[in-house]
């Protein structure tokens, strides 16, 4: 596990660097807040309504499709590492796997899951 130690050290340094930046600007920055300054930017007019409104369901859909496909990609990694020893057997298995994946992909496409109009 000792080879993961440098990552931890780097993480602590990076985190320290980021937090220092936040603190430094809080110390050195001028602080003259006014009511107008603290309203959300909306091209100079008073903000209309809340910003946390509903937005297009497409984005949720993309996120869900992503989760499915990303898991498939993770399955491909160990296969790719072992591919040289699996040879033809591994190849045929992966053709079946990607084939099933591809049918699902075509289904999503045909049902309009990838359209943005």
């Amino acid at each position, binding site marked *: 596990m000792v080879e993961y130690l440098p990552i931890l050290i780097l993480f602590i340094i*990076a985190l320290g660097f980021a937090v220092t930046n936040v603190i430094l*600007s809080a110390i050195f920055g001028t602080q*003259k807040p006014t009511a107008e300054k603290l309203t*959300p930017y909306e091209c100079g007019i008073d903000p209309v309504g809340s*910003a946390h409104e509903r937005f297009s369901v497409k*984005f949720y859909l993309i*996120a869900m499709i992503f989760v499915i496909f*990303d898991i498939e990609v993770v399955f491909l990694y160990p296969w790719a*590492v072992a591919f040289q020893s699996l040879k033809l057997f591994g190849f045929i298995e992966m053709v079946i796997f990607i084939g099933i994946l591809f049918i699902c992909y075509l289904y999503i496409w045909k049902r309009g899951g990838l359209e943005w109009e």
Partner: protein
Amino acid sequence: MNKDLLIYLTITCIKIFIVFGVIQFMIISMIWFERKIMAHMQVRLGPMRVGPHGLLQPIADGIKLLFKEDIIPEKANKFLFVLAPVMTLVPALITFAVIPFGDKIKIFGYSIDLVITDINVGFLYIFAVSSLGVYGVVMAGWASNNKYSLLGGIRSSAQMISYELTLGLSLIGVVMLTGSLSLVDIVNAQAKIWNIILQPIGFFIYVTSAFAEVNRTPFDLPEAESELVAGYHTEYSSMKFAMFFMAEYANMITVSAIAVTFFLGGWQGPFLPPVVWFMLKLSGCLFFFIWVRSTYPRLRYDQLMHFGWKFLLPLSLFNILITGLVMVIKG
């Protein structure tokens, strides 16, 4: 045993500080180079006032940002608002941990690998960490309580996760050829022939997805000024704004370094020392980023999503099958 560990840690700390310093320096110089190169490509001079040819401009900008007022909007979720730039910057800076930037060297009888750490799942580490950056973007968009920020954040996250798929798939061909997830092994395997020759489609997919992943032109939709002001960092000012900028440049350096490692032979090259080769190739990739930015216009959002899902995704699956087929035939 204990002494060995101590030496190991000392060497590691020195390496980390050097790499960290170099990345910081590269971020600063990238800002200058980008402004200068783009200016000359548009027949302008770019920054000229601060220092010779504006060399000290990034430092002046940094000092200016440090002394700017740090505004946190009244209705913003304060905790998430402050956390978001940290969440964006930290993953961008720590991805570099597994990228080899040189061959083994010997100093005082110790053999030192020029990589911060060589873990056997280096490839997975890169993807695990770099995808954390999307949290920062979503948080920034949501916590600002600004419509532009929210739209920018959501757009950005949808774009990043879409292209993350093809980014991951594009490198599988390289892993198949190498049979290892360790980045040191991947570079060593390219001693004779670079992977860009064996995996041209993979390289094309990687480069395209990398541009989308770091939100650069022609895929800089999250920051489309003409429609979304500045996207997810509209409400940010002072050093918090600078941190988003640093994260963007650090991400650019990281994806370039991955491109060099996976496709362009890493530190391998004749005559010059390995570290110099690595830096040369890295600089070449970074120049390419700037070049593309001043060449291509921005895509429309539906074009962007269609391109990723309907073209790059099937192409990357096809690339894996072709690679497998050729490897099976050749034995």
